[in-house]
């Protein structure tokens, strides 16, 4: 058998909590196996070595400064394959909540009289700046989904993204619908793949994976109203992860 040359991969973090990279480090048992398949040349959170020579780039976080726009563009030039890691990268995520206000107000709210030394632009998903080849959704990404995607990637299979709503996962998990429990959720318009873990653990679907393709948002808006949410409440339910819904 010919010696297998491991593709070089790099991990980058932009505006984010770095939780998606941590979710990968939390695939403890799989780490040695992963490292047999790819050569990690950049992962600042966990290693000192760095290199600009890589084929695959994993990018966590939204783009929210001019410097980040330039940096993500450079990464795209160097990589053959770009993977967006998690909600901040795929939809803009929670970062986009600041976009509801003018940027000058946002800076003043947080930094007061020192606002002048802070630079920021409206937060956005990375595909609003560069072409993205694959998206791993969620806040944070699911380790299980990452490993499945990773297997596809190194086997040369084309990875698939679920295009059905969280309700499907939720039924499979045997959950009682949260609307039956007097709560509200956005599962019917949100992309699945999370095993509806939030509902399983007593919460609701917050919409972190973005919309399914062709979501019937208007119908869901009516449902939320019918269950007693005000128009403002409906809007807030839908915009929490709503920078740009995939």
């Amino acid at each position, binding site marked *: 058998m010919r010696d297998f040359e491991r593709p070089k991969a790099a991990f980058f973090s932009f505006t984010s909590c770095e*939780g998606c990279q941590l979710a990968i480090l939390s695939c403890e048992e799989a780490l040695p196996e992963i490292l047999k398949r790819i050569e990690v040349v950049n992962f600042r959170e966990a290693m000192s070595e760095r290199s600009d020579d890589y084929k695959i780039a994993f990018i966590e976080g939204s783009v929210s400064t001019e410097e980040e726009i330039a940096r993500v563009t450079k990464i795209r030039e160097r990589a053959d394959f770009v993977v967006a890691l998690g909600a901040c990268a795929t939809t803009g995520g929670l970062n986009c909540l600041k976009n509801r206000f003018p940027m000058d107000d946002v800076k003043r709210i947080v930094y007061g009289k020192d606002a002048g030394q802070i630079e920021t632009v409206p937060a956005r998903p990375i595909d609003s700046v560069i072409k993205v080849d694959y998206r791993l959704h969620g806040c944070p990404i699911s380790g299980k989904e990452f490993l499945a995607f990773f297997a596809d990637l190194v086997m040369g299979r084309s990875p698939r993204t679920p295009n059905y709503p969280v309700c499907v996962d939720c039924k499979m998990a045997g959950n009682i619908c949260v609307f039956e429990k007097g709560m509200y959720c956005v599962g019917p318009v949100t992309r699945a793949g999370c095993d509806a873990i939030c509902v399983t*653990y007593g919460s609701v679907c917050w919409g972190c994976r973005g919309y399914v393709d062709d979501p019937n948002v208007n119908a869901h808006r009516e449902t939320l109203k019918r269950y007693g949410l005000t128009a403002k409440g409906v809007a807030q339910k839908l915009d929490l992860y709503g920078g740009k819904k995939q």
Partner: protein
Amino acid sequence: MEKDLNINIVEVTRIEGHGNIVIDVRKGRIKELRFDIIESPRFFEAMLRGRRYDEAHHIMSRICGICAVSHTSASLKAIESAMGIRISRQAALLRKLAFSGEMLQSHILHLFFLVLPDLVGAGSIVPLLESHPELARRTLGLKRLSNDICAVVAGRHIHPISLVPGGVAHTPGTGELKTLKKRLEDSFRELDALFEFLSGMPAPEFRLEREFISLKARGEYAAYAGEPFSSMNYPMDSISFRKRIKEYMVPHSAAKHAKSPRGTYMVGALARVNNNFRQLRPTARAIAKKAGLVPPLTNPFQNNMAQLVECFQMTEDAVAAIDKLLEMGPRPEPLKRPKAYGTGIGMVEAPRGTLYHEYRINKDGIVERAECIIPTAQNLRSIEDDLRGFIPGILHMPKKEISGLIESLVRAYDPCISCSTHIMDVRFV
């Protein structure tokens, strides 16, 4: 020593977030010394403004993937104190259990993934998997266990799910808790092995008298619960904390610096062990003594060992919480509803130190104002002071070694830069 030295470490690696170290020494005197924070700010205060109270913990958890349980807990405590909610004993025990899991997870991650490579002269854990397979297996096992503690209680560690205003929305089964307890008891073996290894690698010598601030609790080692306490012993509580601690901007940092009435102070594992030594459980205290970690502590490099002492403490705490839960028989409980509105404060000991959230919530349950004080922001001044004190003593070394030691010192603080920039105190105006 009349030496010139220019050090510019761009993006210190193996720390959480983005920071540079700039040092300029002329004729043996430090002209300039900065720990630049270059992380992109995220403006959480602005994000939270106008959102419902029952979204706040979900949003604030996203400040940091590593200390998500801490931010969630501080957020919940602030919401619950503003809204007159008292959670049940079972809910408090479950939250404490998740909290132990996170502290354990964060410390193991820091010690194994970030610090250990320094000790064996590697750039990352990757070579360790081959050179120290047994140690790697043990620590990865410990990390798995700490993740599983959070998973059993809260669904997952990174952005916990079931920790919500009014209690805990999911009840673990008796079987799950028993399995966890068994694994925790077995894990002391692994912790012992890690301790043996770390004790064989003594910390660099460096002493500087300092003020330590941490929470302190009656009858337990402060983590989820407690009131702020200074080793200088002046009066302070959660209400006066924000007045005592002054935060201020410096030009080179997107994170604020902080000072106490006495000036520079340190928070984190070393501060907690120093301030709460007598509350340590027996095994953890024995380990602390064995490691020479007996107050008053002065060497910031010992923060690594203090974290390991806390791994023992958190494991014992987790077992004790599970014992109480099993005795009570965990059962599903309704969440407590809000009874009031107003301003509330929530404080916890995050893995990296004292964390403060304060919100004002109006009668419609909408957050009008949010303010936070973050552990790493509180440590930035201390990191710079320590570097200033430490560098003159190592100037005779080759530049590469000096850089290495400087990075190790910064790393010993386990800075979490995402946290420190992603939110800063600040009032909505």
